[in-house]
């Protein structure tokens, strides 16, 4: 789980890879579609896809009727691990912002009296 989070974060540290993930959130897509979505060479996009595959964020499989067509889809597991981890950071800030809000409300009362 910890490794999942580290690997997921490293894979997501790049804006192109984040964009690929966003595209795959909508639906699975063909490799060709993903290449067309970017203003860069096929091999460059393929490199990013490989990093996402190695990190376990996406998987790739062929179509039944044509194995040469590669389909990419997201694997949910690393995102669940990442979200669980981010939830903890969010709870940390939600706590402190709650304390800030209480302080601001006390001040605001003081200002209006």
């Amino acid at each position, binding site marked *: 789980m910890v490794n999942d989070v580290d690997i997921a974060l490293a894979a997501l540290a790049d804006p192109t890879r*984040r964009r690929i993930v966003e595209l795959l959130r909508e639906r699975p897509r063909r490799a060709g579609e993903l290449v067309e979505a970017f203003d860069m060479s096929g091999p460059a996009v393929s490199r990013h896809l490989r990093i996402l595959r190695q990190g376990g964020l996406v998987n790739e499989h062929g179509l039944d009727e044509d194995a040469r067509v590669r389909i990419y889809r997201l694997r949910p597991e690393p995102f*669940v691990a990442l979200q669980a981890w981010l*939830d*903890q950071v*969010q*709870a940390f800030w939600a*706590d*402190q912002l709650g304390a800030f809000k209480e*302080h601001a409300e006390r001040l605001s009362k003081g200002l209006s009296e």
Partner: protein
Amino acid sequence: MSTTGVASAAVEVPLDPDTAFTVFTADIGTWWKRGTRYWNDAERGQELRFEPEVGGRLIEVHDLDSGEGFEIGRVLVWEPGRRLAFTWRQGEWAATETTDVEVRFEPVGTGTLVTVEHGGWERVGSASPDLAEGYGHGWAELLSFYVEETR
């Protein structure tokens, strides 16, 4: 489901943006909650303090007279009433391992929406176990995520 690796939290306060920014920064020594989750050294930590300028330090003050203690980070953006950004690190991380916190102040009616975004975790090498301990509420909260499908 987050796909960006950025944690965010927001709150609305009954102050105008300029006042909210001033209170957030100048009064952090008063409002920042105590407790081991929030301090590098909860024993020695007296208050948090911002040096109010770009390049200024965010310090967990251990000595109120000198103002010295643990440097949590440095101010990257100081735009009163609008935006504050600073780096954030924990004592056990390597000096180069810093994350980024951005705080935005937006007018909403007669008050201000304050949003915190905390990212840059990919720069912290394998700090997750410490982090989970430092920021987490423990397993109950962690597991609640698995039953909470929508956000």
